[in-house]
């Protein structure tokens, strides 16, 4: 009886402090290992069109899978793949990837653009998309080291209004950014995020 209570205690403590889920659990690996031939080892992509999902916020992962499954968010193969998993499986995957350290792979970038991009990031983006430490917003993606073509594609979806699942916060922030700068200066941001990748 006591033993059972103790187990729950440990579980609750674990949940409170978001302790790593058992990464060696074979059933967890059975699920997440299916993702990585496209998304890179443990979610860190070397391919330029696929996003890093390592260190992705758990809630954002769950939302992305649900939105692509329903077809609300535009996607290609993911609208099919997301259908194949139950809600609890998606939650397990989300927890796993949120606890992976993202390996930021090297990308070529323009130094001048990256410097301009850093200033723009600090003025407009860092409130939600923190570069140091984890982003505070539950649904904000990590941008450091994300592949430029992926980010460009995603921003285009936002600008063209082709993704209705965009958060009102992001929609307004993007409009504010473009009103005050230009669409081209969004490109500077991408060079900045690319500059944060490895050598």
């Amino acid at each position: 009886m006591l033993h059972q209570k103790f187990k729950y205690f440990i579980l609750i403590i674990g949940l409170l402090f978001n302790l790593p889920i058992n990464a060696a659990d074979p059933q967890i690996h059975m699920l997440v290992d299916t993702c990585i031939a496209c998304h890179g080892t443990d979610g860190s992509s070397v391919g330029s069109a696929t996003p890093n999902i390592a260190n992705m916020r758990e809630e954002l992962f769950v939302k992305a899978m649900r939105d692509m499954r329903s077809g609300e968010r535009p996607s290609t193969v993911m609208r099919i793949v997301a259908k194949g998993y139950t809600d609890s499986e998606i939650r397990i995957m989300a927890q796993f990837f949120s606890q992976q350290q993202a390996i930021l792979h090297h990308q070529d970038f323009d130094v001048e653009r990256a410097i301009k991009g850093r200033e723009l990031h600090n003025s407009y983006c860092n409130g939600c998309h923190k570069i140091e430490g984890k982003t505070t917003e539950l649904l904000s993606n990590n941008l450091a080291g994300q592949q430029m073509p992926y980010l460009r594609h995603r921003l285009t979806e936002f600008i063209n209004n082709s993704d209705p699942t965009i958060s009102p916060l992001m929609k307004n922030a993007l409009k504010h950014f473009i009103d005050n700068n230009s669409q081209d200066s969004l490109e500077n941001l991408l060079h900045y995020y690319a500059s944060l990748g490895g050598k």
Partner: protein
Amino acid sequence: MANFTRRTFLAVTATTAAGVAGFYAFNSRIKQKVVIIGGGAGGVIAAKYIRKAGSNIDVTIVEQNQHYYTCFMSNEVIGGTRAIESIKYDYASLAKYGINVVYSQATNIEADLKQVKLQNGETLSYDRLIVSPGISFNWDAIDGYDETMVDKIPHAWKAGSQTTILKKQLQAMKNGENIIITVPPKPFRCPPGPYERASLIAQYFKRNKPNSKVIILDSNQSFAKQNLFTQGWEQLYNYGTDNSLLEWIPPDRGGKLTAVDAKEMIIYTSEDKHTAAVINIIPPQQAGKIAIDNGLTDASGWCPVDQRTFESSLQADIYVIGDACIAGVMPKSAYSANSQAKVCAQAVTASLRGVEMVNPSLVNTCYSIVGDEFGISVAGVYRVENGKILVSQGASGSSPIKASADYRKSEVAYAHSLYDNITHEMFD
């Protein structure tokens, strides 16, 4: 100490002995050996994931080639939009995962002795054997064509020198000369592959030899992603018009290959004869030779396996993954092999530890490049129910037939991204 009787002494000794025995029993795991035949999309991933799951398992890959050329994206090499060096890999990085690689050909599996004989004279013993040999060609199936002719009439269905030969033959063609591609009966490696190849050759002709033409002689009445390919061909290569760069001839219009005259470069079909400057025969296929020679195949020429574990239905402790195995509704693709290898790695590890295997989860994703800005895909998620690999919750399908130019273009980017990640997972 006063109570320390002879009986307790014996008990303590026995416990210690059991402890020591236990230690050695545990330590003997160090000697548990997995041998993997074939260093391709299945074998390399199985090796890595077994090492990842249990560092005390000794893993050896037997591979006959020093270099591996991916079949995936080799059609881009043939079509001239990718360099052959960019699909070439070696096994040097596997050492850092503690994986042994023996460069030789496995010639014989002695299942009763649990050992594999190699061409170099070595004998490797195993606790579990994984066979990931890919395909072999059924050379007896086509009258007048066999492996002695592959330099003149390449198959290019295993990447490497064959890829380069076909590419060079294309480059040497004169504007206005044609190529014939013959497609074998299903099932074969990479179901959309012949049509992707035809597409990328058509793209090459469009740019370099606009009066030349690709003629596909098909042994099948329908093919993978057919409506999507057809749409791409219509948009890009005038398909269906008098100026088409492509022609597809199914069996009911005389497309089925019956014989070859290699000397005169003539292809005979059930109803016709065709001649062309370049001929690419994709031969009928079956499981890799090692699987056939060692009783791992059934009458179909492919390897039946337990759909949960990929253990051979015909021989204990031998597992078959990738193109060679029969994996329910999964197609024979690199992604399938990758996914099966991960399931098999868990099954092998669980079996060595004497624990129950977890529920398998599998995925396939497969892109075809129809043109530089026109990509199409199929994807599926699979799980095992009642001993069968089935589509999970309806998660199977292909690109929509109605899609924007941006959508098609983005699928090319995703195809290349997948390629970079899957090869990074294998060889980095």
